[in-house]
Each structure stands twice: as structure tokens, then as C-alpha cells.
């Protein structure tokens, strides 16, 4: 039984480590902040991801050349955005999206270089958790059942060599 639990402790440890790395990756590279949070915080030198909506009637520029200016709103907060980057195929007024760039505190504009789709990571996390937990639990329960059956056969003094003929005890 000890071997079984040791093996499963290793698997659980590796799974938790992977979960922790994924969470860290999400926090560092994928999580977004609101416009209000960006304006309220001290000027960030690192690129940030902000989530909001393109204000109606403010989108100007050449989208195919990847140059645009617009107002970006999130609730009551809004800021001016200067976009310069890859051609904008999926940007339009009233569109909710994520902008990746830096806040220019001198010019009081957000200089965006990239856009991203808004994703609900809850769906991704739910799909992975359900699958990994269900499969992991099922395999663990089955391995434990084999151990219990071997023990039962031995303890009830019914053990005979044919018990081991379908694979060895784990």
C-alpha cells in the first residue's frame, strides 16, 4: 500500500506544481486590470493589459495600417488610446477587448501595441479541473481496489498462485 500512496503523492505534487505554474503564468501574462485601476495606480513602466470598451464615435485612424486613436471606457473611467501595431481587423466602436501597452503619464495617453480577445478563464479552468480530477480519482480508486482485493485474498487464507496470474501486485 505504501508504494501506491508514494506514487500518488508524487503525481499529486506534480499536478499541484503544474497548477501553480499555470496560475502564475495567468497572473503575469494574461490577467487584465480595469481602466480605473490603471488611472488610480502609480505610472507603470511594465506593459499592462487593460480591459474595456471602445467608446462610440471616437475611433479614428487607418485600421489596415495599424494606426488608430480612440477613447477606451470601463464604467465611469475613460482614457485616450493611441494604437500603433499590427493591422486591426477586429476592432470597432462599442467592441469590448483587451489592450496591451504602456501608460504615458506625460502625454496622458495609453500607448497600445497589441490587442487581445477577452476570455473567461473560468471555462478553461473548469474543463481542466473536471477532467483531471475525475480521471485521477478513478485511476486512484481502481489501484486501491486492486490492493484491497489482494489483501482480502491473502487475509482470508484463500490465496493461491492463480491470484497473481493477471499481473503482479502493484
Amino acid at each position, binding site marked *: 500500500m505504501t508504494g501506491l500512496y508514494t506514487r500518488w503523492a508524487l503525481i499529486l505534487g506534480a499536478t499541484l506544481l503544474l497548477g501553480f505554474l499555470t496560475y502564475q503564468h495567468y497572473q503575469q501574462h494574461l490577467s487584465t486590470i480595469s481602466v480605473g485601476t490603471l488611472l488610480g495606480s502609480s505610472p507603470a513602466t511594465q506593459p499592462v493589459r487593460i480591459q474595456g470598451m471602445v467608446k462610440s464615435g471616437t475611433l479614428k485612424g487607418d485600421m489596415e495600417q495599424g494606426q488608430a486613436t480612440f477613447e477606451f471606457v470601463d464604467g465611469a473611467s475613460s482614457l485616450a488610446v493611441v494604437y500603433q501595431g499590427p493591422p486591426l481587423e477586429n476592432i470597432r466602436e462599442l467592441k469590448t477587448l483587451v489592450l496591451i501597452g504602456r501608460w504615458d503619464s506625460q502625454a496622458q495617453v495609453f500607448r497600445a501595441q497589441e490587442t487581445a480577445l477577452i476570455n473567461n478563464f473560468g471555462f478553461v479552468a473548469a474543463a481542466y479541473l473536471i477532467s483531471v480530477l475525475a480521471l485521477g480519482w478513478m485511476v486512484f480508486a481502481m489501484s486501491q481496489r486492486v490492493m484491497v482485493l489482494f489483501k482480502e485474498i491473502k487475509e482470508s487464507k484463500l490465496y493461491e498462485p492463480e491470484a497473481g496470474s*493477471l499481473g503482479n501486485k502493484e
Partner: protein
Amino acid sequence: MINRIIRQIQRYKGWFGGGAALCIFLGLYTGLLASPPDYYQGELVRIMYVHVPLAHTSTLAYSVLFGGSIWYLWKRDPLVDNMCQASASICALFTTLALITGSIWAKPTWNTWWTWDPRLVSFTVLLLILGGYLMLRRLVDDPMRGGRYAAILAIVGGIDLPIIKFSVEWWRTLHQPMSFSTRGVSISDDILIPLTLMSLGCWLLFAYMVMVRTQILYLTDLLHAKKGRLLSQTHFSQTTP
């Protein structure tokens, strides 16, 4: 012959389990951390790395059940019957998970948890067939007869496999068409690597689970048989003057 092959493969059960764990961990790592987001779906594409391997494995599991049932009806090998029973219960697990993860993926992309799409319906029919198979085995008192009836049901239910595979081509459907076909592979390498690793991991895991479940069924039968023999011996020694 099949009986001998099963017994031979059982010896390498640990390798299948270890291989499955390794492939799944590498697949999860590349799928969650190393692969890029999709242009249209963004990060949601990562659901594919669990949904598609689960769905592929459930059709593989049913193929094993289908082939095993034909063999059982022909040779009446109890070990093959145990393997079929094991495949059916594990196939039911993989099918359920494929449907759940598919539903989770459908909500943000199709804006619905469920739709009467041919692929979804044919996959749900597969789950119902498996439910029927497992119930039939429990409901019939004589295990030999139950095994025979269940094998017939599994063979008849095999008609659902080509329907699942070709449903996206035969009917107008929301579900995306086949990515792997004789026409080639229509997905990029960035996505193909985690998908292949996860698929390989799920196939190995299925093989490992079938081996363990077959072993459980075998040991349970053995224990019951031995207990029955012991009881009859005790009873015989008590009643004999």
C-alpha cells in the same frame, strides 16, 4: 490466442501507466503554458487539448468493446468478456467527460451549453448505449447470459461509431469538421504538439485503466469462487456424519 496476448500485455501495465502520466503532464504543460492562443478563440482554444483527446479515446474504447464483443461471441473467453466490461465502464467515463468539456467549450463559443447538433446527439447516443450495456450486465442474473446479451448490444451499437465520425460531413453542423483526414492535417504545429501528447496520454491511460479494471473483475470473480468453494466445503464437513 487473445487470452495469451492480454496476459502478456498485463505484465507491462506499469509502463502504460507511467507513459500515460508522462504524456499527460507534458501535454498539460505545453497546452496550458507553452502553446500560443488561437487567433479567433483566444485562450479558449486550450479546452481543445482536453476535449478532443477525451472524445478520441472514447471512440477508441468503444472500438475495443466492439471488437472484443465479436471475439467473445465467437470464442466465449471469460477474460475477453471481463475486458469488454472494463472497456465499457471506462468508455462511459471518457464519453461523459468529453460531453461535459464539449458543453463547457460550447458556452463561450456557440453561446449555448447544448444544441441538437448531429455530432453531439450521436455522441450522447453512444453514452446511452454504454449505459444500456452496463445495466444489461447487472440486470441479467446469469453472468454468461448477461455477457452474451451485452455483447450483442455492443455490436449493434457499433453502428454509432461511423455516424459519430462522419456526422460533421454528412449533415450541416455547428461542430468543426475533421482536422485529421486523408486530405491531411489542417492545424498548425503549435496546436498539434500538445494535442498529440494529450491524445497519446489518454490512449495509454485508457489501456492502463482497462488492464487494472480487468484485473479487478478477475480478482473479484476469483475471490467469489474461492469463498463459494470454502463455504461449500465447510457446509459439507458439517453435514457429513
